């Protein structure tokens, strides 16, 4: 299941397919998170976004996040697809699916995954505003990069 579960792609993300990858006969709960392109951010209008990735490393880091989740929430399955290239308003940039036999783990592991992605997966977003363009830094904002190392324990 591993290879297919962690993808970086230029094509629109088929949510159903990401969900399929985590389904099993002992699954009772599946959570998904879909990060979509928002038109307005603090009163500023986005026209479209452009995502770039260091693809092989990004896939490797997505898989690492899945491994971290499996260690913290045994019995869960995780699939993550991140899109790159040009994305229009409303399109999905990332889809995370987590399955579990019970729902609490599925919610918690899913929220953990998006936090880790924003911390340490080598993917960059360029905002194309109505009045300019910028590559966006760490979205957490409060993290004083690069002092915070994007390592997980043991890596």
């Amino acid at each position: 299941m591993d290879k297919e579960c962690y993808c970086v792609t230029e094509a629109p993300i088929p949510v159903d397919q990401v969900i399929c990858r985590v389904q099993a006969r002992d699954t009772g709960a599946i959570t998904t998170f879909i990060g979509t392109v928002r038109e307005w951010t603090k009163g500023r209008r986005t026209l479209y976004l452009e995502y770039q990735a260091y693809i092989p490393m990004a896939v490797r880091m997505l898989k690492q996040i899945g491994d971290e989740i499996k260690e913290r929430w045994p019995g869960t399955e995780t699939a993550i697809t991140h899109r790159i290239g040009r994305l229009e308003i409303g399109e999905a940039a990332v889809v995370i699916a987590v399955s579990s036999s019970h729902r609490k783990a599925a919610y918690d592991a899913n929220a953990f995954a998006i936090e880790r992605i924003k911390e340490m997966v080598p993917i960059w977003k360029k905002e194309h505003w109505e009045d300019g363009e910028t590559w966006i830094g760490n979205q957490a904002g409060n993290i004083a990069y690069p002092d915070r190392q994007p390592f997980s324990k043991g890596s």
Partner: protein
Amino acid sequence: MIRVLLFAHLQESVGESMLEVRGDIQSVGTLKEWLAEHYPLPGIRQVMTAVNEAYATDETALQSGDTVAFIPPVSGG
């Protein structure tokens, strides 16, 4: 020869997504010094680095054939 990968604003600043560096490069730190001297990469000393797709530090040793990627603050998701 060391292959250097650039992304996001670093890539735009240099105008290349990949550089090939030859010469006496012992570590990530040495490579950063060398790049800062030869390319418009003034902030390179503070940027996270990956060697062969794994996060590394300035002390990480390099050898010919390694791929070094500079990872500006990420903004995926």
